[in-house]
């Protein structure tokens, strides 16, 4: 491991809290003992410890995947500390204490005032003496029997549900990073929509962000019972900084008969500076199991942050007539690298999937789409439609498409379209000749390019995402 990376991985310690709360921070390194310690600190039941240990044993026999089209120095997993007591963020007393640069970004993104305060870590009740939004929100959900809480809370309050569903979509030994997450995950979200309930509002992790830090190994589990439906929003457009460089999250979705889960992400983790120094390594496993008949899993993602993105939100279409969707915009600039896409595994008859991927690369960045469409022998009359478009801004970036198609059933139908385009000097000149400057022109072209994906986002999210993209590409042309 390079000295630079070692330095970055070790960053949490620079701030000296180790010496202060020594007893609550695990020593660096990963072993069965560390895992036992994490589990006992969190007062976990034995079955969960067993789950972690099994994952760990599998992980020991695995090697980090090397097939992705990204490059980074080897990660030393023994140089990471896998547990520190959940610390609440230091609250600022007023907006005046917030970094002006951050405020400028909020301004540009059009983030609503109360959210700005919350995101910047200002105690909301100091500024808005109303009842906490989050509390009202929780009460409303409880009325209809929806559970939405942190993963740790769920382990204690709803152990039977966690035990029933955890690892059923992403098994502990699924892949290197998922195994690591299964062994050491610290917290995350749990969401349960009981039979027949249509969730009355979009569930947003935003309401949970500031309660505590979820840490670098986040675990999310969403279950929609028969006939239930939910739209879940992860992340926010505001930039998120974290001193931990490696993030390896796991998200599992389970949809029973006629259930519908829509999962939208806007990812804007720190991407590193314009020379490619720093930035988050984001190695995520996201998978939905369309277990029941007529169920639907839909992923929408707008990926703009992280130095490295390795992420393939997937759908296992097991139930007859089930539907899988993947709508993605991935933007890379400067020295960012993204290798992202999806897997659609068709098992049930008449299953259908749609893939719409839009990759935008600027600066020296590299953006790859990697997708698998698999029609298993039982997938009679299954259908897939894929569309993968790339757009290049400038001459130093790259865009690549790696579609894998496996068809084992003759009645299945797979359609794939791909295109690469470039924002050319003559297009920008055409705009300029009509009085429109390069930034507005690029924003207009990009929004046109991403339209089909943005249409899938909840309204306010779409507006913010549009602005976020312009902000991300600011200065990349002209």
């Amino acid at each position: 491991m390079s000295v630079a990376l070692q330095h970055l991985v070790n960053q949490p310690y620079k701030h000296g809290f180790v010496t202060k709360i020594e007893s609550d921070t695990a020593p660096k390194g990963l072993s069965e003992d560390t895992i036992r310690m994490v589990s006992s600190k969190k007062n976990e039941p034995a079955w969960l410890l067993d789950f972690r240990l099994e994952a760990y044993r599998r992980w020991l026999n695995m090697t980090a995947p090397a097939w992705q089209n990204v490059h980074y120095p080897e990660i030393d997993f023994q140089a990471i500390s896998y547990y520190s007591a959940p610390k609440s963020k230091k609250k600022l007393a007023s907006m005046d204490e917030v970094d002006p640069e951050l405020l400028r970004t909020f301004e540009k993104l059009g983030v609503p005032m109360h959210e700005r305060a919350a995101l910047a870590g200002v105690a909301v009740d100091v500024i808005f003496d109303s009842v906490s939004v989050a509390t009202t929100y929780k009460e409303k959900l409880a009325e209809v029997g929806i559970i939405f809480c942190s993963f740790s809370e769920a382990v204690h309050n709803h152990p039977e549900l966690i035990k029933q569903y955890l690892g059923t979509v992403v098994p502990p030994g699924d892949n290197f990073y998922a195994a690591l997450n299964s062994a050491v995950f610290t917290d995350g979200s749990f969401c349960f929509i009981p039979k027949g309930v249509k969730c009355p509002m979009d569930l947003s992790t935003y309401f949970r962000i500031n309660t505590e830090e979820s840490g670098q190994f986040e675990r999310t589990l969403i279950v929609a019972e028969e006939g239930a439906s939910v739209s879940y929003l992860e992340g926010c457009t505001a930039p998120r900084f974290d001193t931990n460089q490696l993030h390896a999250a796991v998200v599992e979705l389970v949809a029973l008969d006629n259930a519908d889960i829509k999962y939208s992400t806007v990812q804007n983790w720190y991407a590193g500076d314009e020379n490619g120094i720093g930035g988050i390594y984001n190695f995520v496993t996201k998978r939905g199991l369309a277990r029941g008949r007529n169920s639907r899993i839909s992923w929408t993602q707008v990926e703009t942050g992280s130095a490295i993105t390795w992420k393939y939100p997937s759908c296992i279409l097991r139930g007859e007539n089930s539907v899988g969707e993947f709508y993605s915009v991935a933007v890379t600039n400067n020295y960012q690298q993204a290798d992202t896409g999806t897997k659609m595994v068709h098992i049930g008859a008449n299953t259908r999937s749609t893939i719409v991927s839009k990759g935008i690369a600027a600066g020296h960045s590299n953006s790859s789409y990697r997708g698998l469409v698999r029609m298993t022998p039982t997938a009679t009359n299954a259908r897939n439609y894929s569309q993968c478009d790339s757009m290049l801004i400038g001459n130093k970036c790259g865009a690549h498409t790696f579609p894998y198609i496996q068809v084992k059933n003759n009645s299945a139908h797979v359609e794939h379209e791909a295109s690469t385009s470039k924002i050319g000097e003559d297009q920008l000149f055409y705009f300029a000749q009509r009085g429109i400057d390069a930034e507005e022109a690029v924003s207009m072209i990009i929004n046109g390019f991403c339209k089909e994906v943005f249409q899938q986002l909840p309204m306010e999210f779409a507006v913010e995402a549009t602005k976020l993209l312009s902000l991300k590409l600011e200065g990349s042309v002209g």
Partner: protein
Amino acid sequence: MIRADSSILLEVHDLHANVEDTEILKGLNLTVKRGEIHAIMGLNGSGKSTFAKVLAGHPAYRMTGGEILFNGMDITSLAPEERARAGLFLAFQYPVEIPGVANDQFLRLAYNTVQRQRGKEELDPLEFDDFVREKMKLLDMNPGFLDRSVNEGFSGGEKKRNEILQMALLEPMLAVLDETDSGLDIDALRIVAKGVNQLASQDNALILVTHYQRLLDYIEPDYVHVMEAGRIIKTSGKELALELEAHGYDWISGDKTRASGVQP
């Protein structure tokens, strides 16, 4: 710099410009007053489009000498969008396609940008829709073009009409029409010419770049210039176009003694 004669809209003096390292414009002179219509003719490759793009500030062309005064102001250091907002309009010979960007949104953004610049009212999408449909009627354009991507899949003639539509919306002080006539059939040419004539006034001016006399039957120029090898080598009244039509360019080519580019 403010010139004494405020009737002069454009003054180009000894203009030199390169693309990559090749000099294309080699000392071009031209003066255009308000209310005038100028035609620039000349063989393919003589530098007509290059001149239009240098005027508009295309980044691929480097000005290496001379001056361009627009409305009394030296515009050579202005960005292309600033020149456009100052009232300079170029109808492109080959309008570029912009997939994914709806024509109506593009037109409205351009319109509102210029309106803002002039301290005039901007229009919301509904108001603009009414406004633009009226303008399209004058050019006999199908409103279906509003929903399509800018120029994408438009025929050559449709692209040219879309350029004139933009001219009609932006009401420039100086419009340079680069071979707007080529690709238009005779009916379309009449309609476009009618539109252009309606826009012409005593306050603005027009430069028509063309190959053919035909356009000049409908839009009558005050001056006709002949361009060759990056310079204007002859300037005369509209009868020059007819002579060119009859005799070709050969009869003036080479006779550089008649080059002036400045009106009598």
